[in-house]
């Protein structure tokens, strides 16, 4: 009888070509995909050449996405995007995504079937951990490692110990994946899962749609996690079966697999969450928020820019008006999502409510463009980070929440739940 393993251990063992791994061991893994974006790719490309790289290890297995500073926000950014575009052409990469066909990396890669269950993926972007929602091992790295991996197709890892988060029971109205992960980070802190795998399980997680699962795994890094992961089942099968163009393997943790710690949350205890400045761990239930007047509301980002998120915001904004003192910015996560939102009439709802609807971009999420805050301004956002200066001036503030809360707050001019409108 082989020793029991967690799903994270199984994924790493499979890609390292060994039968068994345990936490603390070093492994060298073969990569199914290497990702970089317009901010991280330029350094990765320079390093690729300084390492003596000539051809990427497999043009099918490298994805480059122009999403952070695009549509090009200034001349310097334009140069960086151009470097990435030129490299993609030279290397004949089929998976280069420019504006007009792509969107935010962590939304489009799963949507285009580039990441599948069983994969081991790295990306020069910390939110690469998003793909754990598909039953893959994925984690962020820096540009040099992405450059090296583009050349070699492999990387070393130390096998992480796993933490298990079991969520049971039914969720209240306006509570979703965003609230589960903010609640979790609020409980364990921004380094509570440092170097660990965060595995989410339980009846609540099993009943969640894909969008919520992506949101949860997306923010594993905000607790310091190496990866976030959810064992795939019927929901994942349904999502990938129409998208996959290669075989995939759905793994799950063995009974008796070892966890460093197991946390149990009761879904009924979780209110819509709001994380106060300047750390995601400053999460409070909406009933504990008090009076926070806002200047801007942002719905979008790799955390909550999916069609389901836009629908949730639209449900709240339908027939209402954004408060005159608030700028409400809606950013569909991809070209496809934008088109679907137009066809469903959601975009019309947003425009009638007085929102500005943007083409897909990371934009304000990292304080790049398309909604940068001035000194003293406050924003509620469906993004994932509220560090000092994250959305603009170092004296501005970001409050993290789910799309329904962000939309309701835009209408009220202060942070609130749709029930209070």
């Amino acid at each position: 009888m082989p020793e029991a393993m967690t799903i994270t251990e199984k994924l790493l063992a499979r890609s390292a070509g060994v039968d068994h791994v345990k936490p603390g061991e070093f492994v060298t893994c073969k990569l199914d995909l290497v990702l970089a974006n317009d901010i991280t790719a330029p350094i990765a490309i320079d390093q690729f050449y300084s390492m003596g790289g000539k051809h990427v290890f497999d043009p099918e297995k490298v994805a480059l996405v122009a999403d952070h500073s695009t549509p090009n926000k200034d001349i310097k950014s334009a140069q960086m995007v151009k470097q990435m575009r030129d490299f993609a052409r030279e290397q004949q990469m089929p998976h280069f995504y420019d504006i007009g066909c792509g969107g935010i990396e962590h939304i489009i890669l799963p949507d285009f079937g580039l990441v599948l269950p069983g994969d081991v993926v790295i990306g020069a972007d910390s939110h690469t951990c998003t793909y754990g929602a598909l039953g893959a091992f994925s984690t962020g790295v820096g540009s040099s490692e992405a450059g090296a991996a583009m050349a070699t197709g492999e990387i070393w890892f130390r096998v992480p110990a796993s933490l298990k988060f079991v969520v049971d029971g039914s969720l209240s109205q306006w509570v979703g994946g965003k609230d589960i992960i903010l609640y979790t980070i609020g409980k364990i802190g921004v380094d509570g899962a440092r170097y660990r795998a965060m595995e989410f399980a339980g009846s609540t997680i099993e009943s969640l749609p894909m969008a919520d699962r992506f949101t949860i795994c997306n923010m594993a890094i905000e607790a310091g996690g190496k990866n976030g992961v959810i064992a795939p089942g019927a929901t994942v099968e349904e999502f990938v079966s129409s998208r996959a163009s290669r075989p995939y393997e759905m793994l799950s943790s063995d009974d008796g697999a070892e966890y460093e710690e197991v946390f149990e949350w009761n879904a009924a205890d979780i209110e819509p969450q709001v994380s106060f400045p300047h750390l995601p761990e400053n999460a409070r239930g909406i009933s504990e928020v008090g009076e926070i007047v806002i200047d801007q509301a942002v719905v979008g980002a790799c955390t909550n820019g999916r069609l389901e998120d836009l629908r949730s915001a639209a449900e709240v904004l339908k027939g209402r008006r954004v408060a005159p003192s608030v700028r409400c910015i809606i950013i569909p996560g991809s070209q496809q999502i934008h088109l679907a939102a137009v066809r469903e009439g959601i975009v019309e709802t947003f425009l009638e409510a007085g929102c500005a609807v943007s083409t897909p971009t990371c934009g304000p999420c990292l304080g790049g463009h398309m909604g940068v805050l001035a000194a003293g301004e406050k924003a509620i956002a469906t993004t994932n980070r509220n560090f000092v200066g994250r959305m603009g001036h170092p004296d501005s503030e970001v409050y993290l929440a789910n799309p329904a809360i962000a939309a309701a707050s835009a209408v009220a001019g202060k942070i609130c739940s749709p029930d209070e409108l």
Partner: protein
Amino acid sequence: MKVTGKAHRYGDHVDTDAIIPARYLNTTDPDELASHCMEDIDVDFVRKVQSGDMIVAGRNFGCGSSREHAPLAIKAAGVSCVIAASYARIFYRNALNIGLPIVEQPEAVAAIADGDELEVDFAGGVIRDLTSGAQWRFSALSGPAAELIEAGGLVNLTRKKLASRE
């Protein structure tokens, strides 16, 4: 190898947006990045820091984004070593890969005061606070991290690996 310099103290969870704000990520030039290093939590850092100085910080240093621009900015600002109670993992790997020396030593962090004169002896595995006279040991790296340092960084290591495949 030994380095000496003055300590610049910071708290827990110094994130990569604080080390180098995203508004400056439209360049990859290390000197330009260094000119904005730590700007959002310490506007005076760039003016104060002298070649050889060290950043001394609490838990989870370098949390947040994967931007390698963060260790690049610190290194180009002249910082000889970062001493922290603990590191976020992507920053840790990035620092090793680009050759920014980092040491994890929570006891030293608890004791060192802002402005103390420090000496870090990497071969001997000792941090000395020349101002207070205290000293602390730290353990050498092992596994792939040690290999990386041995090879002189990820660029050299990968170049060798690629050459051996040809």
